């Protein structure tokens, strides 16, 4: 049995010291509540809409404040998120797994949305690595940050790399208010669909921790969740309210689910790698594209043509 504490907090934008203090408080509260794992949201130490403030709140991994926070994790695990400045002065949106007083693993956000209301790539560098990490919890942990989960490959790679517990830490802005969605918010409906699907397809626990509160125009909707490896939601936190939520999970459910539904066992890694290799070569123009329309330029699957012109399928290979 593992008791997970979901720290659905409202960080103060740019107020690093204040947010650090809040993290320390909640780690102690979670410990007192018997939690073995505490999960904080994306950029919980800094707030989200930082823009040029990002450089001013960035910390290197050897920062004393992170060491002090890590020291507070003796006897438990915590995932905290902040702006990391690398040795070569790139700024990453990072989430660290801290355990027993030290930083065990750091995930740097790979997918930085730069569209719609997002402008992350302007201010941050993209991480290049998706890796699961062993943990004191006895299962592999896979950490992803918000948009990382809007790409199928992230949960899949983490699960294939050994994660049985997928953690997504988010600062998801609520939007697309409508009466037709199950919680009145399009964003929440989409996320819930994704998380249930990933839990089921990776036969892993999915823990989603999303912040609340307001940065500038945007309101973060919370709704943190724990989903079982069967895709069943075990817990859904209220929307918009701050809170530390304790959720008990039985990690043996992963084994049960993976025996009953051996999807991960049956994944065809070599097939995927081979086909991806082909697509990469074709996109780069290094190989003839065997699935492209006639007349398509190297790297593009579809030929340039007027919309009314009919698509003619090629009868034989070039």
């Amino acid at each position, binding site marked *: 049995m593992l008791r997970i504490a979901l720290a659905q907090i409202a960080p*103060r*934008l*740019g*107020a690093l010291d204040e947010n650090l203090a809040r993290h320390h408080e909640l780690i102690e509260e979670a410990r007192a509540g018997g939690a073995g794992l505490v999960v904080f949201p994306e950029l919980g130490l800094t707030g989200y*809409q*930082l*823009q*040029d*403030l990002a450089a001013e709140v960035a910390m290197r991994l050897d920062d004393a404040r992170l060491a002090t926070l890590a020291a507070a994790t003796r006897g438990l695990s915590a995932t905290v998120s902040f702006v990391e400045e690398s040795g070569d002065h790139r700024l990453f949106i990072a989430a660290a797994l801290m355990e027993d007083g030290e930083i065990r693993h750091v995930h740097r956000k790979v997918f930085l949305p730069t569209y719609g209301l997002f402008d992350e790539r302007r201010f941050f560098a993209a991480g290049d690595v998706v890796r699961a990490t062993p943990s004191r919890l006895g299962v592999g942990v896979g950490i992803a940050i918000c948009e990382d989960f809007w790409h199928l490959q992230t949960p899949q790679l983490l699960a294939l790399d050994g994660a049985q517990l997928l953690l997504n830490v988010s600062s998801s802005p*609520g939007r697309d*208010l*409508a*009466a*037709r*969605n*199950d*919680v*009145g*918010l399009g964003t929440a409906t989409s996320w819930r669909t994704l998380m249930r699907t990933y839990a089921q397809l990776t036969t892993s626990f999915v823990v989603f921790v999303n912040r*609340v*509160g*307001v*940065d*500038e*125009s945007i*309101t973060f909707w919370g709704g943190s969740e724990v989903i079982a490896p069967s895709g069943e939601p075990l817990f859904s936190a209220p*929307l*918009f309210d701050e809170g530390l939520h304790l959720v008990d999970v039985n990690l043996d459910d992963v084994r049960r689910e993976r025996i009953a539904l051996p999807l991960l066992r049956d994944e065809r890694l070599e097939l995927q790698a081979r086909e991806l290799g082909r697509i990469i070569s074709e996109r780069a123009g290094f190989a003839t594209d065997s699935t492209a329309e006639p007349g398509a330029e190297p790297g593009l699957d579809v030929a340039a043509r007027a919309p009314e012109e009919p698509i003619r399928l090629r009868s034989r290979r070039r």
Partner: protein
Amino acid sequence: MSAARPLPVDDAGRPLFELPDELAIDTDVARRVIAGFIRGQLLQAGFERCVLGLSGGIDSGLVAYLVSEAIGADKLLCVLMPYRTSSPASRADAEAIVADLGCASELVEITAMVDGYFGEDGAMGAGGESVREATPLRRGNFMARMRMAILYDRSVAFGGLVVGTGNKTESLIGYTTLFGDNACAFNPIGDLYKSQVRQMAAAIGVPRQVIAKAPSADLWPDQTDEDEGAFSYPLLDRILYWRIDRRRNTDELVAMGFDRALVERVERLVATSEFKRQVPPIAKLGPRTAGVDYLYPRRRPGSSRS
């Protein structure tokens, strides 16, 4: 699934307003978001109170209720700023809202300020001879800017932030006065179409007569938005929603059944009013320029006044 509430009806059982299906929102969620937004803006700015101009219309009425819900009516000052030709019914409606909420209110007539500039009854105003025959547009803009000046003055005395009361529809078509009624510290309803303002107003308990009456800028007697613009709000809202929020182009809107001439007119209104929705551009000269490559949150540690 959030339960759809029936629309409020008049004494004859007819709906008070038309709410197109695609514009219906979950008003409970919207109220939660807006209340948190209002509290968040005040917190970040280091203020506890709000000031707004209450006309007696549905937009400012709804905002008064939303602010009261977010921070309590005791922290809200509503300023009533009628001109001599303003509708007495509007003032009565504004007073009914103040009484219902139990918030503070002040009456500041703008007649002397406006007539002092434009002149009155043959007497020359401060604006001189040339403004005597000013168009209703000029007079209306001037009134809106006098109200803005009063609100910002009262905001200092009351220690509150000026809350915007403009809706998404009027902002998109440019039916606002730049630095007048669109001037504010923050706007809680600026992303709600008029139809959604009505839905929210009904849900939060704005008096029924305020919801039911024809929207008007009340800049001259018997003016109504829909007469002046020759449109109906539900139709205009739908065109804007599909054009902007759902990215449909003109041909697609026409194929959906909208009148091409109306769609094209709405597109012109949106395009010609873009300047009213944006911060004025600064000539780029130095290494870092506000709004261009000096990009900070409006509020950060150190920007709170308290």
